[in-house]
């Protein structure tokens, strides 16, 4: 056996805290280690070449890399190892960045000791690695796209054109989103509805897209390749197939309510067409506004409906379907300007939002102005953005340019107007934006640098007075305007928050959805097969949204196109010499992967590799590739190497899907937890057998923590039950020896529960410390104690 160990400095991320040389010297003294190297960036080409050279020149047959979390570069390193002629599964990664240097940044000595242990644990595991071949899983070509704005439309069309089946779910009665409300788009001034409506029409026309409008997502369970989606189609009361959009129903409807599409600037009837460019182009009955459906109070619309499209007995319909990947394109809401009281939008009809202004301009340009716009118009920038007073620190990115657009459209349509834009910083960062800003200045729009302090309205003449400092001349301006336009910022939409809850997606501090990596995985999430695009991820303009939507669909296609995706060969197997054919295990696999003939055997196509069957075997005949009983025992033994007299040692078994990634996130967030913990990656907490736990206690553990994916989002939904059973059995065994049963704990997590993770770990450490280390007498022979698994 020839093991090579490579220790990465990560350009200081590791080496600023961990003494890399000490870790390397430690590795040199380990049995079977023939080569140790350290380097600033193991993931670089030079670093990978070092590995390659080690394998070819030094005839390595096992490789251990101490670096960042395997979730970042494991695939890169596996490919290098494979190319050099070894099995990709003889590689072990010691996570000394996210799970050592970062969370213990304040304790360099303890971090170095822990790093040595982590390397030792990886060497121990590598020594027992089997040279396995790669495995693949089949995957279908079905995608759920959530949200039918321009992001969702673009993603759906890209996917459908590439031959994938798309379910496009939109909560409103029509697709089109916010873009459908805009006048023109900056900086080219295309008519927004004119360029959007052909794309909207393409959606129902595409045979690969199933369009579900006025539909909400109720529940999503499952995992990559098998997401089970439940949606609720809300009742429209109008059959979209039959409705010809003749409009006779609207004429006779007696109920008048504000029109949401027009931002309440016009009214609509209770039965109405959601917008002139609505897709599906069908009327809908607003059951909240209708005079009464139960019992029927009016029925006039149905009387005039020639195609008989109206059905008052329509009810919500629950629909279930299965998809392989998901794209979240749930968009944004505008900041509610009532939250900025000093601008007084509630007190004057002459204070409006920029979205109101979009609608006013649309109607004015069609020759049907909704109201007089006036001669003196002021735009106030950063309303609800970059403002700690309303709790939003972020810049909404598009307001500078939409104000630049609206102001010059107003000025050009009537050059006698005085149009002012009051800004804090004018950010014209995009392609053609600076030129467009210049054009506005040439047109005669006046840009004044100052955040408006307050707006006061006069009830008699309707004039609005605004007070602001021109920060460039340091003079105070107090001026009257006919109309004040608030350039409201962007916030994560209600739909975005909902889907984040349903899919357990992480949110960044500004509330928008968090991408998996800010630079290299900008549309991925940490949930496999779930992608994000558009303003759900953060404020952005239309071209960026469309680019992200195409990027998200391409990332989804990348997973699905081959019809199979690579997975680790983590599957159960049977030691035939130990199996006595009792059949005890058979019922323990929820996927039905275990078969009994003479002895038990595993159906490799069905096994998902959770390892929860293993604890059911009374003769220890069941085992799991990549995480064998022998390997885990060796890892546990190595984790005790640096343990000093009187010190406590806590083992954390972290499931690969959630807890291991959660621990990484905790490290990335530089949240510290006790350095006496050693995290061991397992496919599922259910892999940790009672025997392994007892062995760990016998070898020196003072506490064991098992972290598992929350039942709902786990790929192994039965695992929690197995863990509970295993934990209960070990607690009984500990009690019999007068060892505190609370030394073993478990919890279910989702990847964003950073605080809970830290608290749980520290809680167990504190408990173990207060009880003190388990005495040698108490430990002796523990592994041979009988455990009783209760059903």
């Amino acid at each position, binding site marked *: 056996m020839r093991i090579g160990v490579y220790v990465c400095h990560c350009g200081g991320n590791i080496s600023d805290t961990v003494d890399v040389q000490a870790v390397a010297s430690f590795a040199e003294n380990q049995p079977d280690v023939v080569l140790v190297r350290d380097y600033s960036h193991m993931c670089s080409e030079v670093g990978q070449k070092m590995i390659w050279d080690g394998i070819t020149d030094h005839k390595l047959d096992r490789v251990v890399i101490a670096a960042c979390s395997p979730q970042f570069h494991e695939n890169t390193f596996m490919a290098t190892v494979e190319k050099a002629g070894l099995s990709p599964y003889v590689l072990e990664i010691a996570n000394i960045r996210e799970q050592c240097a970062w969370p213990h940044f304040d304790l360099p000595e303890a971090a170095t000791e822990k790093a040595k242990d982590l390397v030792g644990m990886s060497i121990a595991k590598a020594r027992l690695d089997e040279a396995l071949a790669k495995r693949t899983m089949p995957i279908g070509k079905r995608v759920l796209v959530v949200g039918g704005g321009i992001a969702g439309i673009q993603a759906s069309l890209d996917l459908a054109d590439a031959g994938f089946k798309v379910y496009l779910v939109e909560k409103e009665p029509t697709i089109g989103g916010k873009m459908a409300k805009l006048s023109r788009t900056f900086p080219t001034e295309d008519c927004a509805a004119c360029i959007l409506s052909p794309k909207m029409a393409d959606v129902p026309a595409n045979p690969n897209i199933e369009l579900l409008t006025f539909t909400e997502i109720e529940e999503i369970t499952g995992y990559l390749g098998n997401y089970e989606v439940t949606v609720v189609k809300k009742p429209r009361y109008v059959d979209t197939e039959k409705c010809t959009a003749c409009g006779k129903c609207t004429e006779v409807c007696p109920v008048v309510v504000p029109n949401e599409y027009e931002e309440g600037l016009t009214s609509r009837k209770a039965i109405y067409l959601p917008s002139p460019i609505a897709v599906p182009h069908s009327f809908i009955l607003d059951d909240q506004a209708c005079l009464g459906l139960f019992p029927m109070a009016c029925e006039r619309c149905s009387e005039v409906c020639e195609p008989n499209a109206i059905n008052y007995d329509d009810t919500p319909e629950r629909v279930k379907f299965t998809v392989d990947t998901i794209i979240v394109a749930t968009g944004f809401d505008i900041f509610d300007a009532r939250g900025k009281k000093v601008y007084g939008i509630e007190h004057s009809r002459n204070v409006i939002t920029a979205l109101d202004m979009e609608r006013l301009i649309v109607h004015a340009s069609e020759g049907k102005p909704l109201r007089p716009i006036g001669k003196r118009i002021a735009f106030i920038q950063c309303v609800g953005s970059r403002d700690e007073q309303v709790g939003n620190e972020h810049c909404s990115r598009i307001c500078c340019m939409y104000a630049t657009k609206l102001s010059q459209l107003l000025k050009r349509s009537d050059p006698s107007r005085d149009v002012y834009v009051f800004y804090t910083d004018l950010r014209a960062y995009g392609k053609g934006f600076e030129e467009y800003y210049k054009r506005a200045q040439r047109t005669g729009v006046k840009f004044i640098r100052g*955040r408006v*302090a307050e707006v006061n309205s006069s009830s008699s003449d309707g004039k609005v007075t605004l007070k602001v400092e021109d920060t460039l001349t340091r003079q105070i301006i107090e001026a009257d305007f006919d109309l004040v336009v608030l350039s409201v910022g962007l916030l994560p939409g209600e739909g975005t928050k909902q889907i984040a809850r349903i899919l357990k997606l992480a949110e960044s501090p500004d509330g928008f959805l968090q991408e998996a990596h800010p630079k290299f995985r900008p549309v991925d999430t940490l949930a496999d097969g779930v992608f994000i695009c558009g303003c759900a991820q953060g404020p952005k303009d239309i071209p960026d949204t469309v680019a992200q939507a195409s990027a998200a669909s391409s990332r989804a296609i990348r997973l699905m196109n081959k019809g199979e995706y690579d997975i680790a060969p983590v599957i159960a197997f049977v030691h035939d010499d130990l199996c006595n054919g009792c059949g005890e295990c058979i019922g323990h696999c929820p996927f039905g992967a275990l078969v009994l003939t003479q002895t038990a055997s595993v159906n490799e196509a069905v096994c998902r590799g959770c390892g929860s069957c293993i604890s059911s075997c009374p003769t220890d005949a069941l085992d799991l590739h990549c995480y064998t009983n022998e390997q885990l025992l060796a890892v546990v033994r190595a984790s005790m190497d640096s343990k000093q007299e009187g010190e406590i040692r806590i083992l954390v078994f972290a499931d690969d899907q959630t807890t291991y990634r959660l621990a990484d996130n905790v490290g990335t967030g530089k949240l510290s937890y006790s350095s006496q913990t050693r995290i061991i990656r397992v496919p599922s907490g259910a892999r940790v057998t009672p025997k392994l736990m007892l062995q760990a206690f016998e070898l020196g553990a003072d506490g064991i923590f098992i972290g598992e994916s929350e039942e709902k989002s786990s790929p192994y939904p039965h695992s929690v039950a197995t863990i509970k059973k295993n934990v209960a059995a070990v607690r009984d065994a500990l009690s019999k020896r007068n060892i505190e049963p609370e030394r073993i704990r478990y919890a279910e997590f989702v990847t964003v529960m950073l605080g809970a993770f830290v608290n749980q770990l520290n809680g167990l450490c504190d408990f173990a410390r207060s009880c003190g280390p388990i005495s040698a007498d108490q430990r002796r022979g523990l592994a041979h104690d009988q455990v009783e698994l209760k059903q």
Partner: protein
Amino acid sequence: MANRLMISTGNEEFLERISEMSGQIITLCEQCGVCSGSCPMVSEMDITPSQMMRMVQLGQSEVLRAKTIWLCASCFTCTVRCPRGLDLSKVAEALRQVILRQAVDHIDIKALPRDELVELPQIALVAGMRKFTG
């Protein structure tokens, strides 16, 4: 010729001193001017509140000669509106303290004639003591 603005490391000391005394991270001021537009005393001031912040940022101790710092009534309107959450009244107070700690007596109470002392409103006397004596 326009004034030349000197920027050098020596200027940091004044900024650091005022930052420490006021407890405000003065470099966070983004010069939006919302404080000046909100200030009820601004028409009486020689420099605007945002200008006061700028001068401190640049380490210009001439700000101590401004009337503005004495005119701040600590009404907190700027403080509740500052988008960066800065408390300008604390900065103004820190600047006043720099002068007050020099302990220079600008008025001699004992020299005031008795008649004037009787006439003088008490609040003016207290304010005068506070501002003009060490």
